[in-house]
């Protein structure tokens, strides 16, 4: 081949051939196949939202979890007040008066301890035996 060959030296033509009447038969063949193939209808307007819906799913999940968490937190804070509100006034009065009785009895115990007999009772000795004891050890003569 000569060295100064250029593509433009070759006449432009299509060297490929097709069987006789190929292009007359082709549309019918395609139409026959198309009849069995069905076709897709245009996408509905909401189909465009599908990718957004997928992207939004984790956000929605997070939002729901947040709402549940915070409402739970609020319930926990309100709980003592709510429970107290359900207690009848009589029950509260009973509760307080029970404590009042206990406190009074405590005080009566203390006042009974302050009596001298209580000490003797506590030591389990008669006053005569105690005096004899004091004399024996001469404890009544010692100045403190």
């Amino acid at each position, binding site marked *: *081949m*000569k060295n100064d060959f250029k593509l433009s030296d070759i006449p432009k033509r299509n060297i490929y051939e097709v069987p006789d009447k190929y292009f007359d038969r082709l549309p019918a063949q395609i*139409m026959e196949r198309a009849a069995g193939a069905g076709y*897709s*209808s245009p996408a509905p307007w909401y189909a465009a939202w599908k990718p957004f819906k997928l992207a939004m799913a984790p956000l929605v999940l997070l939002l729901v979890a947040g709402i549940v968490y915070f409402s739970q937190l609020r319930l926990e804070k309100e709980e003592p007040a709510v429970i107290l509100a359900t207690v009848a006034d009589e029950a509260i009065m009973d509760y307080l008066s029970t404590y009042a009785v206990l406190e009074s009895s405590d005080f009566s115990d203390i006042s009974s301890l302050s009596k001298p007999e209580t000490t003797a009772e506590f030591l389990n000795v008669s006053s005569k035996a105690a005096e004899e004891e004091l004399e024996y050890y001469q404890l009544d003569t010692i100045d403190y």
Partner: protein
Amino acid sequence: MEDKEILEKFANPDSRNLAFNQLIRKYQQKIYWHIRKMVIDHDDADDLTQEVFIKVWKNLENFRQDAQLYTWLYRIATNECLTFLSSKRKKFFLPINDVAAELTEKIDSSPDIDGDEIQLKLQKALLKLPDKQRLVFNMKYYDELKYEEMSEILGTSVGALKASYHHAVKKIEEFIKQD
């Protein structure tokens, strides 16, 4: 029939078949020859052409009219060709050169090819180009598409297409000189 009219009729279920038949008749040759120059063999080209039109039938209602109908058809046909050639290599574990050798052998043996010596040399030289560069060459040289149209079909910039075509021409001339 104008593309716009075809699309309007296709949207109506009563005239859908008629419109699609018109569409096939209008574009079948362009699509077939575009495919045939890439796959060489008539039977393969026939299968792929039918496949392209079946895809068009299934998806034409979703076709957005911001693109021209024939560039959309070309794009489907181009993708079919590239997928076919790629799967051929994967199926038989063939490197690029072996597929080119197989297609070259078809040029020599097929009864559906009729060209003089220089025409056959040109076709064989074309098969030595990478698939995408061969597409660019065919669309510019044979189909005489504008670079802007090719850019829309192939999703490549006009500058890159011009460079690709220029290099393709140089390579072909070199192949033919060496042969």
